[in-house]
């Protein structure tokens, strides 16, 4: 009995922390519709800041607390809202979630940079360390009591704030009707800033309390938020009382499990699988169950316009792109060093994983946070299945994982948006904890995935594997485009655009969603199955999935090019970190930083870039000229006139800075034309003429020079050559009748209608 009471108190105190975290999540979700995955990371940063002030700089505890919780946390919240979140109105849930993922990555990078984990540091002490109080025959530490008290205070304050003050009522009013709030005279932006500041304070409080209980480490503090998700979901992301109840239940479950699992009768394994991972999985299991018993998400009627838009490439473009990708990779693969080959290979593997998100997230609008988990399952299947890596084994592995993907989706299919995303996250964590971390799965920490065995072709080298993965990406990419142009593809788009309209037309939403999940899981499995090397479970951890999702969305998750861009960027990031140690810290933050720009351009980077290349496609003369230029640069390299580096930099310059501007140069007025050509040629001459191997001493500096060259000469050419845009702003009633269409407009209209190739 005594023991039970002890564990109840421990459980309630843990639950109190969950409650504080979860209430912060609910506050921002209800006011801005953004589910903040970075909430735990905010708490982690606050805990570190408090530690810095209190234990490293020896401030008194009240002062350190005041500075952290009442100055820095609210400031951080305000800035987050102002700089990052405000741009996100009118974007899809996918983009909003990705931005919080970006923030998450950014903060972890920041913490790793400022407080590297290798140095020894002063201990993080509990409040009134060592002091306990005697209640009902057991000793309770002051820290636990304070934790509990904090939760009670937070509950009361939030209740009063939300229902008794105008600010609180306005916070709820903004959710109901943003523009009406303005018409009443309220300032929605100010309300949102207040909500984010409040939420950051709650996260900070929870972080500091938890750091006292555990140790000051980045990971447990960040993952704390996953436990709190469960509590927030129990509260329906809305009701604070139910959120608090959910948090208490979670805390108690954890404590009681701890108590009972010590007993001898408690099973240590089940069907050969060890159960040691269970305790850590409790919140995830609760989350999963809470999601499953949620009422079916209602289909929303009415037109929803999103800011993202993606064009479907024509077959010509797709095939041209696929072939040129393979040609380019084959061409340059011979010049790369072994380590760079491996990095590029890694980039393509990540690109395939990102590609798996295109049909699911880009087309069907269903968010998944577990793409790497399916890749991991693919790797496991490839290595365990008989056949030693022949094509049949690959097919079998893909099929199995696709079936698993559909099976996982089946219970979660009733959910949509954020709930679906969280259930995939829960799945990923469960698979990692209960399957990947098992001895049976990964024998001694890693398994070797056999290299794909294609008759008559030997690919047993890094270069071979690189070409294989680039080919695989090209073929899968063509497959995805074929899918988009098929009947099923149109159904996926319908599912994203308007589930209500699709359902009323008689479309089976469940089947369509299952198909999307199965296809996505199958593509991801390919990435794992083609690994062709030793792999470890860490590679497929849930936290590794987040940057991929993020960069796929940054690249543009609606397009195959976006997946390639995202994958290569993530791979390239590793190259940069390796080549320039001084940039290592920046590369940790970089994925986060790129994601934060999403609010400004939710369609992704590739849609912007491809917009520049689109006009080229109608003019075969210019395409041939561009290709000729590329071959010419390659020939210079092949005949040893220029170095590999000059080839690389010149080639990229040609592609990014010269090609998009060719039309503008040709169509420009004679004077502008000469200036623009002169600028472009100067840039090209510099990139080809400089002896990069001698003149610049490190890879990083060469890459930086490349970026500078493209930025200065590319943008310069564009600015000089550009014609004034000729877009009519007349009413569509008149356009084409009273006012003639310009050639540009005609071109655009035909493209929209799909009447040209």
């Amino acid at each position: 009995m005594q023991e039970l009471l002890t564990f109840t108190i421990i459980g309630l105190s843990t639950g109190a922390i969950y409650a504080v975290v979860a209430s912060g999540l609910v506050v921002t979700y209800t006011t801005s519709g953004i589910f903040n995955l970075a909430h735990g990371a905010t708490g982690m940063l606050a805990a570190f800041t408090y530690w810095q002030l209190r234990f490293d700089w020896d401030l008194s505890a009240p002062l350190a607390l005041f500075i952290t919780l009442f100055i820095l946390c609210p400031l951080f919240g305000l800035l987050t809202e102002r700089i990052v979140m405000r741009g996100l109105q009118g974007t899809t849930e996918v983009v909003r979630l990705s931005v919080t993922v970006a923030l998450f990555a950014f903060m972890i990078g920041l913490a790793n940079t400022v407080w590297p984990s290798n140095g020894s540091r002063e201990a993080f002490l509990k409040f009134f360390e060592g002091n306990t109080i005697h209640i009902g025959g057991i000793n309770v530490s002051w820290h636990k009591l304070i934790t509990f008290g904090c939760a009670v205070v937070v509950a009361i304050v939030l209740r009063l704030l939300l229902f008794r003050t105008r600010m609180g009522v306005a916070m709820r009013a903004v959710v109901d009707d943003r523009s009406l709030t303005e018409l009443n005279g309220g300032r929605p932006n100010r309300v949102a800033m207040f909500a984010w500041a409040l939420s950051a304070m709650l996260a900070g409080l929870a972080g500091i309390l938890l750091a006292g209980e555990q140790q000051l480490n980045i990971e447990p503090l960040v993952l704390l938020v996953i436990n709190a998700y469960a509590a927030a979901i129990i509260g329906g992301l809305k009701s604070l009382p139910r959120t608090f109840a959910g948090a208490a239940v979670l805390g108690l479950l954890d404590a009681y499990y701890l108590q009972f699992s010590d007993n001898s009768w408690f099973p240590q394994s089940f069907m050969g699988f060890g159960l040691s991972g269970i305790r850590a999985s409790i919140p995830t299991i609760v989350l999963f169950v809470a999601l499953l018993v949620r009422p079916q998400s209602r289909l929303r009627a009415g037109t929803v316009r999103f800011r993202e838009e993606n064009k479907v490439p024509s077959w010509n473009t797709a095939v041209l792109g696929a072939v040129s990708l393979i040609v380019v990779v084959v061409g340059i693969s011979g010049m790369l060093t072994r380590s760079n080959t491996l990095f590029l290979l890694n980039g393509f593997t990540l690109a395939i994983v990102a590609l798996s998100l295109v049909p699911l997230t880009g087309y069907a609008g269903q968010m998944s946070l577990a793409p790497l988990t399916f890749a991991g399952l693919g790797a496991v299947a490839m290595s365990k299945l008989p056949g030693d890596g022949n094509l049949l084994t690959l097919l079998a592995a893909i099929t199995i994982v696709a079936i698993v993907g559909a099976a996982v989706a089946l219970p979660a299919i009733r959910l949509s948006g954020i709930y679906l995303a969280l259930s995939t996250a829960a799945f990923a964590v469960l698979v990692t904890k209960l399957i990947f971390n098992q001895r049976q799965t990964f024998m001694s920490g890693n398994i070797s995935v056999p290299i794909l065995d294609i008759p008559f072709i030997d690919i047993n080298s890094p270069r071979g594997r690189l070409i294989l993965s680039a080919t695989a990406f090209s073929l899968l990419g063509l497959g995805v485009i074929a899918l988009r142009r098929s009947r099923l593809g149109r159904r996926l788009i319908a599912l994203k655009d308007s589930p209500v309209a699709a359902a009323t037309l008689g479309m089976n939403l469940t089947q369509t969603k299952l198909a999307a999940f199965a296809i996505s899981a199958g593509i991801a499995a390919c990435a794992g199955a083609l690994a062709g090397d030793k792999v470890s479970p860490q590679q497929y951890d849930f936290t590794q999935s987040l940057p991929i999702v993020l960069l796929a969305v940054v690249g543009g998750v609606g397009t195959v090019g976006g997946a390639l861009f995202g994958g290569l960027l993530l791979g390239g990031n590793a190259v940069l970190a390796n080549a320039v140690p001084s940039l290592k810290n920046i590369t940790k933050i970089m994925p986060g930083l790129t994601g934060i720009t999403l609010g400004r351009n939710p369609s992704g980077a590739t849609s912007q870039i491809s917009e520049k290349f689109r006009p080229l496609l109608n003019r075969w003369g210019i395409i041939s000229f561009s290709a000729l230029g590329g071959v010419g640069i390659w020939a210079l390299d092949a005949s040893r006139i220029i170095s590999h580096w000059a080839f690389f930099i010149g080639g990229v310059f040609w592609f990014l800075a010269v090609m998009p501007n060719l039309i503008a140069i040709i169509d420009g007025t004679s004077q502008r034309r000469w200036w623009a050509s002169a600028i472009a040629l100067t840039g090209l001459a510099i990139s080809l003429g400089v002896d990069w191997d001698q003149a610049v001493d490190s890879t990083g500096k060469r890459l930086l020079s490349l970026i500078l060259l493209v930025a200065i000469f590319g943008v310069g050419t564009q600015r000089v050559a550009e014609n004034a845009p000729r877009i009519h702003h007349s009413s569509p009633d008149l356009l084409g009748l009273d006012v003639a269409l310009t050639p540009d407009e005609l071109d655009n209209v035909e493209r929209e209608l799909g009447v040209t190739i």
Partner: protein
Amino acid sequence: MNTPILELRNIRASYGSIEVLHGVNLTVGRGEVVALLGPNGAGKSTLIKVASGILRPSAGQLMIAGRDATGASANALARAGLCTIPEGRGIFPNLTVRENLLMATYSGHKLSDIEHSTYARFPRLAERRSQLAGTMSGGEQQMLSLARALATDPVILLLDELSMGLAPLIVSELYQQVAAIAAEGVSVLVVEQFARTVLGVADQAVLLAHGKVQAFGKASEIGEDVLASAYLGS
């Protein structure tokens, strides 16, 4: 004294690249009730959005009491005494009646005053003060949205499609309230698709079609033939 309280000068407004208003001029004098008429898609609601500051015009000027207010935010205009009841129901469905009235206090009035004046005019709202506004009937919801206009003593009132989805009897009751507001000297710009319901209340009428003003004049002078040709196309 003759400066109009609200004046739109050559206003152009567009959604994306599609222009909806092609140079609209409109004035509402002090104490005047101006009816804005026009068929579906004429740009009436867009014009209200521009006048209330929700939508920034792409060209032209928005003058309020003789001062240039182009580009001012909707909330600043609202606090300055421009009260807008938007299309549909101008209420927060998930807040209680009382909380809806609390939102009206941004105008600078005390909650107790607002409550007092509202419940005096609409006793039915007093009974429902702790009920969620979204669960009331359509007429009651529209009363609540008008209550803001009545209690906060605005300088000018913009009304968008008050009659939408309501029974004719309730509509005429609501327009009596509008007439009462106007009688207190508040200038009103009222959008209405059903011309006859509003022409009895209005001093002036403006007929909008295809994003341009087609006709304007005294409300009593707008003839059936002008309306018919604008609504049906001639």
